[in-house]
């Protein structure tokens, strides 16, 4: 009995020591994936380019705030996370950070002083960036960005998520991949695309599914679940691989145009993807957007033919495609304009057909097609409902300066009517997705009203 108690006591002591060690022993930070020469200097503009490719602005700039000065609220399932000031202000920014501390934040998710960052910071992805890019980014932030004094609100999540040391254990699950970039090696172009998609672009943060522990399921190109589609805040980030995915349905040229301008022959980017185009992708070179498109196209092994350029200047008359075989029945029903058509079709005729047309094909670079549109048929119905109620906006870019705006129909349709219309759209032109209820519409309408 005594021996037994002694063993229990010993285990308890060991447990306490282990817990204290877990909390207080500093985490080993990753070494540089690649040693740079002592006199290495980034190319002029390289750091700013990496900043754009990594879309730092998206999170580290508050609405109406100074660029990179932090303070943006980022909704997470655990609560609101406030982004930090990454201008080189000594007091409120990262002015006092050494390069090694900066790299640790990018690669291991550890801030100066050893605190764990919440994984809203996509260090799972930035971990794959090249040493020279991280270094160029650091030099840019430190030397070329004006320091902004901006004390941001401290993130205060509820217990147990306020115990940041717990992220250490989470990192054991999430950071199983080595730091640095491992190209697949199909072609230089596709390797460049892979790098941008995996690393700075952090596409997997939205487009890969999540594990039960909320870490990204599929961080690198060698995993089958990589970019297999995710759900963020009730919005589908569609799969970027598989037969029905956009990269397989669209040409490399169309994909690159979508990335660089937010619009192509099939669709337009709105919501979160619109912001990515606005803040990040439009600033990348044509070659890099083509590289990402080529990589996505070839990810499942397809033959890749990349054009030299895309989204040429001087688009001519708008082309309006007729219905295809799958959409013919719906298109001719709408064209006949019979008053006995279903209510959803009547609502489409009264409200939508002027731009999206009887064919449901829309018009290239302006009106997205609704046939086979992932937002229309997605598992999440909130985006479709939200666009019908509130409209949508596609940002203008250097190549396509016109901002595209769809009006909202919240005043023109009741919840029941929006539900009828959305349900009808999800079955029209060969679409095959489930019904939308008036209660779902009411939920989106009320959530918008309370903002």
């Amino acid at each position, binding site marked *: 009995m005594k021996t037994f108690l002694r063993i229990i006591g010993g285990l308890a002591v060991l447990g306490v020591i282990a817990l204290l060690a877990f909390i207080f022993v500093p985490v080993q930070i990753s070494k540089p994936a690649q040693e740079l020469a002592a006199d290495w200097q980034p190319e002029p503009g390289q750091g700013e380019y990496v900043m754009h490719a990594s879309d730092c602005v998206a999170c580290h700039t508050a609405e109406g705030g100074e660029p990179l000065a932090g303070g943006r609220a980022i909704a997470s399932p655990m609560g609101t996370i406030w982004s930090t000031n990454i201008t080189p202000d000594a007091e409120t920014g990262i002015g006092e950070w050494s390069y090694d501390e900066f790299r640790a934040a990018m690669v291991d998710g550890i801030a100066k002083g050893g605190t764990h960052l919440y994984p809203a910071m996509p260090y799972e992805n930035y971990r794959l960036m090249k040493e020279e890019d991280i270094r160029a980014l650091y030099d840019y932030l430190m030397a070329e960005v004006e320091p902004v004094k901006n004390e941001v609100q401290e993130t205060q999540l509820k217990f147990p998520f306020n115990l940041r040391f717990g992220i250490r254990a989470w990192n054991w699950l999430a950071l199983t991949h080595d730091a640095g970039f491992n190209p697949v090696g199909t072609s230089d172009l596709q390797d460049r695309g892979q790098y941008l998609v995996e690393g700075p672009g952090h596409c997997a943060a939205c487009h890969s599914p999540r594990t039960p522990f909320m870490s990204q399921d599929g961080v690198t190109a060698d995993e089958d679940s990589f970019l297999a589609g995710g759900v963020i805040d009730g919005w589908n980030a569609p799969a970027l691989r598989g037969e029905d995915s956009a990269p397989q349905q669209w040409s490399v040229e169309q994909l690159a145009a979508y990335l660089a301008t937010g619009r192509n022959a099939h669709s337009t980017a709105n919501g979160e993807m619109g912001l990515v185009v606005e803040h990040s992708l439009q600033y990348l070179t044509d070659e890099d957007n083509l590289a990402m498109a080529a990589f996505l196209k070839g990810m499942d092994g397809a033959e890749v033919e990349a054009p030299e350029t895309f989204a040429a200047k001087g688009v001519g008359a708008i082309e309006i495609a007729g219905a295809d075989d799958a959409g013919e029945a719906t298109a001719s029903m709408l*064209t*006949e*304009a*019979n*008053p*006995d*058509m*279903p*209510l959803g079709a*009547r609502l489409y*005729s*009264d*409200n939508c*057909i*002027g731009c999206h*047309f*009887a064919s449901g094909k829309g018009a290239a670079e302006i009106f997205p097609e609704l046939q086979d549109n992932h937002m229309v048929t997605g598992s999440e119905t909130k985006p479709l409902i939200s666009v019908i109620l509130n409209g949508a906006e596609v940002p203008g870019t250097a190549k396509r300066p016109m901002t595209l705006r769809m009006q909202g*129909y919240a*005043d*023109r*349709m009741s919840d029941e*009517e929006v539900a009828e219309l959305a349900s009808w759209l999800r079955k029209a032109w060969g679409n095959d997705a489930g019904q939308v209820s008036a209660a779902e519409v009411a939920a989106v309408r009320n959530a918008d009203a309370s903002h």
Partner: protein
Amino acid sequence: MTDLPGYPSRRSFLKATAAGAALSGLALPASAQQTPKPVSLDDYQREYLNADEWAFIMAATARLIPSEGDGPGALEARVPVFIDRQLASDYGTADDWYMEGPHDASAEPARGWQTPLNPAEVYRQAIPAFNAWCQETHGAAFAELSPEQQDASLTSLQNGDVALAGEVREFWGLLLSNTKEGYFADPQYGGNHGMQSWVYIGFPGARAAYREWPERHNVKYPLGPVSISGERA
């Protein structure tokens, strides 16, 4: 217009059809929409017109677009509501019109608005003057006259045979055009109730999408109209 004995009038036909539809218990097709039944014109809460003016507008619009014609009349389309609401709005007060003088009541019509009065004031001053003329000529205010006398009075007004002050010389033109507007405008302004006038003339409303139709010659476009606020008929 009086009904000839033994001939079915449009009104009796409508009554019979409505009764038939009610009896048959047929549901409306999904595309049509139940327009909520509005308050009757007698109980309508006026925004600008007083009781005498309202009685005049009711009687005058009913003669300009009579209910006994081929289509819905001004009263079915609730044209008086449209006029009342317009006169209470920035149209009635001419908010965004150039209203500075000089005003020359003898100027040619092509010279535009030649009165310091706004439309609401024109109605306010002209209706009692016209009623007085009716009293003198036919022995009663306009609303009390027989349809034949009313038509004759309006004809006199149109021909300029009613001596009105120069400041309200636009009255006939306003009355006629406001009546037409109330009949054909979008229902959100109070007239064209249930889009009846659009159904009558076959205008499909604010749909703005007929790409496939210009080349379909001699085929009737079958779908009913939609209003700006999304009402269907």
